[in-house]
């Protein structure tokens, strides 16, 4: 079938080598950006399993850049956005982060969706001294002066839900989540918050991302008879859980307070009756009735037309992060990394955007922001309680970047 001869192999290898060299030569003259523009990179998965998150994030990041440019740019320069698509593949994350830092010499990398991908690019960008902005809701704990985080942490995001569940439904909670680091760490946080309330997490069950059959899990949950169910399910396959939960007639039997329901737009993909009554807390809902948000949603929908998606707390991240960073650059009056970091950490960076008031916190490099508790009804979110200006205090006992700026860690809760 395949005739491998020595001559053929040599020819092939030589050809490949030559084309590689040619590609390298062709690429190298373009290594430096023009002086009249600021170059930033976005790295969000626009294809593969995570595209439901990455596509809107890239759109909102693009919209932020366009709006900044329309308003005269930054420091008199236009921003040029390089959009990388790592295709839900960790190796491509590493490759693009290096390319952005070394070849394109960007001033900011705005990227990563899962915590796993962030932990791939964070050390790379720290090593190559390129600023990283991470804007996805996550389990908290990143402590790195080179990495600003506008996504909420466990204390800002999971604690209000845990407190609500334990107070409203009862002291016995059952936790299910996807089987990777973020849901596992969020499970630990849930246990910690339970302990503070004198409540308990009966069982924590984790499911690989490709599990779509939840029959035994539903039987097990029924047998444990918890007061409420906390879910941290992720991805397309896990959506089947809510469908099967409804089919088993459980939706009105054991209430669900979900960390992740809605951030993949599950509430519009499932039918209305399958999602009715599920409660979640998020720092942003498209339904937020702030004037800044009503206007923003209109601008977003006009800009992207049919490609516009329902905006959730993950999708909006591309906009929020880019805008907060631009405030830091303006305040610094410089695009140098050290100056921008210092300005962002001054404690003076505050902004009223679509998600309400946001303040960059110098101790943690995270963002102080609002949180809203909502119930899903007929495929929309009805906000019934809001928490103002929550502080990301998760690991503040171990992480103080003002005292220890060289700290570089991803910390977990101590139970």
């Amino acid at each position, binding site marked *: 079938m395949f005739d491998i001869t020595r001559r053929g192999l040599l020819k092939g290898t030589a050809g490949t080598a030559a084309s590689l060299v040619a590609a390298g030569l062709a690429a190298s003259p373009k290594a430096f950006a023009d002086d009249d523009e600021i170059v930033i990179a976005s790295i969000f998965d626009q294809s593969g399993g995570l595209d439901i998150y990455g596509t809107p994030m890239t759109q909102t990041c693009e919209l932020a850049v366009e709006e900044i440019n329309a308003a005269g740019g930054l420091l008199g320069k236009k921003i040029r956005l390089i959009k990388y698509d790592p295709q839900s593949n960790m190796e491509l994350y590493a490759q693009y982060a290096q390319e952005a830092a070394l070849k394109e010499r960007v001033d900011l990398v705005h990227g990563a969706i899962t915590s796993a991908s962030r932990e791939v690019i964070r050390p790379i960008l720290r090593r190559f001294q390129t600023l990283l902005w991470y804007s996805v809701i996550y389990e908290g704990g990143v402590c790195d002066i080179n990495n600003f985080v506008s996504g909420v942490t466990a204390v800002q995001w999971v604690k209000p839900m845990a407190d609500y569940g334990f107070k409203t439904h009862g002291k016995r909670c059952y936790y299910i989540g996807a089987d990777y680091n973020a849901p596992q760490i969020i499970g630990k946080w849930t246990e910690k918050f339970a302990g503070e309330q004198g409540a308990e997490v009966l069982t924590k069950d984790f499911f690989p991302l490709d599990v779509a059959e939840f*029959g035994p*899990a539903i039987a*097990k949950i*029924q047998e444990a008879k918890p007061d409420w169910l906390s879910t941290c399910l992720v991805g397309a*396959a896990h*959506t089947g859980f809510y469908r099967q939960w409804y089919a088993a007639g459980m939706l009105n039997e054991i209430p669900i307070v979900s960390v992740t329901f809605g951030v993949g737009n599950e509430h519009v993909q499932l*039918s209305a*009756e399958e999602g009715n009554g599920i409660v979640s807390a998020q720092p942003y809902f498209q339904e937020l009735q702030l004037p800044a948000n009503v206007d923003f949603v209109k601008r977003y929908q006009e800009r992207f037309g049919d490609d516009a998606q329902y905006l959730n707390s993950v999708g909006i991240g591309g906009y929020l992060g880019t805008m907060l960073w631009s405030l830091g650059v303006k305040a610094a009056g410089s695009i140098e990394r050290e100056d921008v970091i210092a300005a962002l950490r001054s404690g003076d960076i505050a902004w009223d955007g679509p998600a309400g008031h946001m303040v960059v916190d110098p101790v943690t490099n995270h963002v102080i922001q609002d949180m809203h508790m909502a119930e899903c009804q007929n495929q929309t979110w009805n906000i019934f309680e809001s928490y103002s200006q929550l502080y990301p205090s998760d690991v503040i006992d171990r992480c103080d970047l003002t005292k220890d700026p060289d700290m570089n860690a991803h910390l977990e809760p101590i139970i």
Partner: protein
Amino acid sequence: MDTAALLIIEVLNGIASLALACAGLAIIFGMMRVINFAHGEFMMLGAYTTVVCTKTLGINIWISMLIISPIIVGIIGIIVERTFIRFFYGRMIDTLIATWGLSLLLIGIVTAIFGNIIEGVSAPMGSFEVGVYNVSQYRMVLIGIVILLFIGVFMVLTRTKLGLIARGTMQNPAQASVLGISTQRVYMVTFAVGAALTGLAGGLLAPISQVIPTAGAAYVAQTFITVITGGTGAVTGTLVASGVFGTVRQLLSYEFTPVLGGVGLLIVAVVMLRLLPQGITGKIFRRSL
């Protein structure tokens, strides 16, 4: 007591959904010896047919699942068989690669049309109570449908002339053609029936699973393992193997995690194939179908 009842229902459910997913493959691979790597994608097409019929066209869900899905996927089966499967009969490895390509093609086409997003329909009917527990009525109906389906396939193969011709052709095509049977047509019809059963499975499983272009990938490995372990008697073997694997998987998933359920299934499959290299029906139930 209630827990035991709940667990038995869960196990029956697991067996039924596995047997259902395998039914079409038992015909196409078990009987015809065609390695159809696009089996999962045929299921995915059946699921999409049900979703489109119920959600977009507003057709009754039972008609969509039980009639339209198998017909549409059956027709696709005929087209696929005529355009390229028929050139690969008797060439197992080539068929494997060709149908793998077909599976990628189908995923690509469906992604282009519907996008890489989750679709789905709600399960019809409500739930009922087993003691203090709630169980989905639809899942119980599913068990009934699978029992009827296998009885039907068995009856057609053993009690009708059509079944006799199909079995004869698969066993000895040369002899069959000498007796005046158009083997080409028998192959085509058999493949179409297998595809239709697969489409039916996709439609029936749509309300309890997620429907995305790549949904088929989850089924390929387990269905092939089940049919191979079943052995030469495609129908009986598949049913027995589904019984063993479904029980092991559901019990381990219930007691531990779905990961261990999947691992347990594979371990049992390896052990069984070591002890019964010809499959279950190679040793016991030898005269079965």
